């Protein structure tokens, strides 16, 4: 694998929801450290594509390669989700309700076989990255939406992934929190050097930290000009 090997390559991917095709013959590449914004209306298949990349969903046809290795070949998972080394920030956080913030991160570190003696330091570092130091003993039920999202981010960063999938990360947050989380994401991305596939239906804020943007519409990916008016709100057409 060379430095120019794409972090993610999708070739001829096809997926249907029931009898309704979401996309067919979809191709996509993501370079190391690249931040790609993917825009599309609700239900256009953005989240399904992310889930397929993560191995949480199989494809009807096509292949997905991660760092040059075949990960998904149509309906077959060549690499199981837990071995893909992907960070995934779910919409709303999807935090484990029975674990504290510290317990959540410790669980991930254990899964990643990080030696126990390193746990404390790594947890402190992760919480510092997402500006949640002092939240170790809190449970998801006692976190605000923005805090939960940042714990989700810390969890996604736990194993220092080379590919980060962001599924509507700003969804439920108010404007101030959106900007602060975007700033966090940008600085962490630059610091840790992960590639990012960032899915949203409202690209206005995210456009400023992305390197490239695509629109998924009618099952086809079309390039978007980050500076152009195309990134104006999709609001009228949404939902």
């Amino acid at each position, binding site marked *: 694998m060379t430095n120019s090997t794409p972090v993610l390559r999708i070739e001829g991917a096809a997926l249907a929801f029931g009898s309704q095709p979401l996309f067919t013959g979809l191709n996509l590449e993501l370079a190391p450290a690249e931040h790609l914004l993917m825009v599309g209306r609700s239900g256009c298949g953005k989240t399904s594509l992310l*889930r397929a990349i*993560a*191995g*949480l969903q*199989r494809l009807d046809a096509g292949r997905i390669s991660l760092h040059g290795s075949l990960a998904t070949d149509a309906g077959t998972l060549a690499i*199981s*989700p*837990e*071995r*893909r080394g*992907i*960070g*995934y920030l*779910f919409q709303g956080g*999807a*935090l*484990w*309700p*029975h*674990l504290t913030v510290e317990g959540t991160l410790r*669980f*991930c570190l254990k*899964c*990643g076989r990080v030696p126990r003696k390193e746990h404390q330091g790594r947890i402190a570092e992760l919480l510092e990255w997402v500006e949640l130091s002092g939240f170790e003993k809190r449970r998801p039920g006692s976190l605000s939406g923005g805090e939960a999202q940042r714990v*989700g981010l810390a*969890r*996604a960063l*736990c*194993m220092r992934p080379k590919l980060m999938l962001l599924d509507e990360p700003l969804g439920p947050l108010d404007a101030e929190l959106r900007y602060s989380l975007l700033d966090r994401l940008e600085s962490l991305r630059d610091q840790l050097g992960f590639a990012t596939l960032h899915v949203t239906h409202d690209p206005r804020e995210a456009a400023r930290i992305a390197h490239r943007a695509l629109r998924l519409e009618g099952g086809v990916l079309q390039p978007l000009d980050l500076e152009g008016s195309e990134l104006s709100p999709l609001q009228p057409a949404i939902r």
Partner: protein
Amino acid sequence: MSRPLLILALGVFAVLCLGPLGIMLPRVTPADLASLGDSRTWNLLGRTIGLGAGVSAIALLLGLPFAFFVTRTDVPGAGLLRLLGVIPLFMPALLMAMTWTVFVDWRGAPGTIWILGLSYFPLVAVFAGRAFERIDGRLEDAALLAGGRWAQLRSGLPLVYPAALAGAALAFTFAVNDFAVPDYVSSVGPKFNVYADEIFANWNNWKRPGLAVVTALPLIALTVCTLLPVLRLRRRGALASIASGFRDPETLKLGVWRFPAIVFCLAVLSASVFLPLGRLFYEAWGAADGTLDTLRGAFASAFDLARDDLARSLRFATIAATAATFLGLVLGHAIERVRRRRLGTVLEIAALLPIAAPATLFGIGAIVMWSRPGLSGIYASEAMPVILFTGRLAAFAVLILSGAVASLDVRLEESAALAGAGPIKRLFQIVAPPLVGALAASWTLVFAFALRELDAGILVPEANRTAIIRVFNGVHFGRDEYVAALSLLLVFASLLPALFWICFSRKRLEVLP
């Protein structure tokens, strides 16, 4: 989902839960099948369906208002009333019959329907109660603004009906499979024959060993058909679902209606709990000419004679409940999360079969299956009752836990997978902990049902040396004080884990998510 774990669990399920039924099918001959065309047995089945419908109606009539009062209103002691309302489920229905036939002269169908209705009204109360709690306060507020109090009350009902009907459907299935209560209640007056009598009578026909198996099929089909809509409703989230931003519904102030409400609740509890338990105490006391010494003596002799049986019962029930819950977690999870939905549905229906089949069929099937050369070490040992009870009752755990898994956000597992957690770690460290209330409910339910399992246990070695079987032996011989004391001990033992959990755990027992 861990494939080895799932395959192991499916294997165990197939052997323990389905094996005893499957192994009986080869007994069936074409002549046995021909008996299915007999109009007499269809008449019996029709009458039995009538019985089930009547029992469901009583269960709804008592259970629905009871659930409403104890969950949504300011009726005094609502929490305690609600707790007491579950007790009839932990008492054998025959105890209820023995009590009620002493007090009133309702025999035949009306008496049977009333007694079984009282025994199973908690199913409706538990299901509907949970649904009442799950009415979103915001919906009610919207209805209140639009149409006042009445609209507010009515707005939640469409959410409660499916749950109440699900409870009634369960009551129906229990009722149509019972033959001891109709038989006991109609021992005076015209005999009220039910379909289960036909099955039992056919066991006696040794020339046609397949006949009883064939006769059981319509009842199994009826039970499965009744429960399928319940599963469907549950899948659609109709039994208990919470939208994001959910707000607890407000407690309704009854005002002057508080008095009738508490009278109603106490009347239901008197009929279904206080009367049978009181009667047992009265008998343990030695009836009219009893003394405290009689009571003490009754408990002493119950302990003395049945100590070993009671210990065995508790041991079997504990291990069976643990094994069934373990199996329920793995299979319940598989039902909800398996990639091919149809497979999940098939598994769910298969899970119904052990409880849909008559206990005698299951018991004899277990004997046929395990009594063979090479397996005598297991067959004759204490492992056998555990195998039997786990096989027969694991279905409850599977259904409770599949419901619980359905209510769990799948992304919790997905995020764990992406964090590098393998399937077993996900199941036990991510899925199981949030479901602890459901796990505890399934454990306590299987435990209680294993303690009172009579019809299947009676046939199987070791399983027939249990406290409940001693009770029924005793009932026959009219040793009233001792039997009453032992019955009370058994009811108490059935309730113990649930009581323990309620007292010491902050999580509640969740039969429904």
